[in-house]
């Protein structure tokens, strides 16, 4: 596939292999091309989050491998994976996971600090990203002063700050009310459309599924459908 950025090969994950084995993933093979807006859906325990963790290099498969831009990340050492994630992957978590003592601006800039960007570059990019997610007026607010929707928008801006190849979002709308969820989806969809940023969601939120251009359905750790 042209412009493929993510590929999984016979990905298997078995928890508790020596006692009562739980097959979280069963020979999962998927490819994601640049610019996709993809949802991975399925009931609880179907393996959505496990698959996302494998793609994000947060967990290692029992067998099989994951390639990002053709590079096998499964064999990487932990320290290499951390550096790889910093440069190539953006994360949006269900519970936002912002640093409570930092302002919105600092939360977004922080990841660029890890990338050793200049102060000027960090400030400029963090400001422009916060403006892009509609938080230009709340840059100096700490997470506790922001609504759930606003916090998740800061998290999206943070994920984009490192200029990753793609963004993995684990249930990004699960804790948001209707308006906030729609607003967040609008922003992400706009970025996908205008800037060709690749988004992969794990979700069982119908609003996200409706917006996705590709929906991968998982059942019992395997791919049930890919439309």
């Amino acid at each position: 596939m042209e412009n493929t950025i993510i590929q999984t090969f016979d990905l298997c994950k078995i928890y508790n292999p020596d006692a009562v084995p739980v097959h979280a993933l069963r020979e999962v093979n998927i490819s994601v091309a640049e610019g996709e807006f993809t949802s991975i859906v399925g009931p609880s325990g179907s393996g959505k989050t496990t698959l996302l963790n494998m793609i994000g290099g947060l967990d290692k498969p029992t067998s099989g491998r994951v390639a990002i831009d053709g590079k096998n990340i499964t064999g990487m050492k932990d320290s290499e994976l951390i550096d790889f994630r910093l440069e190539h992957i953006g994360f949006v978590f269900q519970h936002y996971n912002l640093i409570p003592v930092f302002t919105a601006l600092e939360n977004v800039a922080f990841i660029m600090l890890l990338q050793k960007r200049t102060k000027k570059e960090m400030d400029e990019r963090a400001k422009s990203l916060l403006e892009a997610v509609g938080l230009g007026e709340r840059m100096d607010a700490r997470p506790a002063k922001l609504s759930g929707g606003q916090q998740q928008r800061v998290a999206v801006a943070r994920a984009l700050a490192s200029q990753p190849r793609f963004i993995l979002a684990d249930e990004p709308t699960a804790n948001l009310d209707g308006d906030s969820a729609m607003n967040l989806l609008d922003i992400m969809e706009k970025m996908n459309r205008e800037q060709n940023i690749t988004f992969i969601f794990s979700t069982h939120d119908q609003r996200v599924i409706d917006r996705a251009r590709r929906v991968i359905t998982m059942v019992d750790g395997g791919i049930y459908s890919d439309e």
Partner: protein
Amino acid sequence: MLAAIAIGLWAGVVTVGTMNGMVDQRMNYLIENEITHLQIHHPEYRTERRPTDYIPNHPDILNFLSSDERVKAFAPRTLSDGMLQTPVKTAGVQIRGVDTETERTTTTFHENMTEGDWLDADMRNPVLLGENLARDHNMRIGNRIVLTFEDTSGDLTSAAFNVAGLFRSASTDYDQRTVFVRNNDLNDLLSEEPVYHEIAVMLHDIETAEAVSAELNERFGDIEALTWTQISPELSTIVELGGIMLFIVTGIIMLALAFGILNTMLMALFERMNEIAMLISIGMSRIRVFMMIVLESVILTVTGAAGGLLLAWLSIASLSERGVNFEMFAEGIAELGWDHIVYPVLSPNEYLAILTLVITIALLSSVWPAIKATRIRTS
């Protein structure tokens, strides 16, 4: 946590300062009041205490001391063990014949006078008694006592002395067994020529005591010059014990601090599991996470420690002027020869040492939480 570190350290440092003050005070008191930095005797005087064991060549020694720049002051003393007789009873005493002028410039014993005058009173054969001794013998200023002792010929001699003043030192035992007279008066009774059994020497720097005593021993073969640690091994032991006690107290404070930091950082870590997992997920290396936790511990501890040390410095500065009054234990403390008002003291080096210790403890006790933080799973 900050308050706990600050208050804990404040209490600990003030305790250390007070103990330090007690030891320093005892040492300074004994040295300045009586022992001085070094003493010169006949080689056998300290064991035999015979009147004939006087310093044989004292003019040469006094000349040497006068010309040595390391010497601040010195006082020759004539000593005798004798019997004090009053109409009430008799008691064994040590008679200390001192030169009023040199003794005043060498020691601070004259500051212990509670009643009457120092020996330069215009009175024939004046004697100073300890308050307790005077009370036991029902003596007042102006009363007469008789001192009996052996002269250098081996004959017993007696003379009447007039009570010119009363003193109270830090030790009730010392006050009970010591009387002071002028060494000229004592010499008139003891020998045909002036004799001295002891020369007390104060130096400009206590650290030079060993060198000066060694030089005296080498230059004047028939004498024994001893430093304060040799004259009073018990004082030396007190100083050493004080050091050990300080070490133990500081150790306990540091141990409590270490557990406090460990507990706080582990609790903080437990609360921040998601945050740290997120940091590792987005690309913060585990070594950076480790450094972050260590740095947080050190900053937290140093901030608390700075507050505690500042508080302790203010407290010690105030208490070193006013003193800590252990009046309720005054009697018992005095029996042991200690003063019941203690002036805490802590040198800048000791503050620095404590701060260094605190930082080291913070570093060490943050290692385990930091290692735990690096092991947080991201999935």
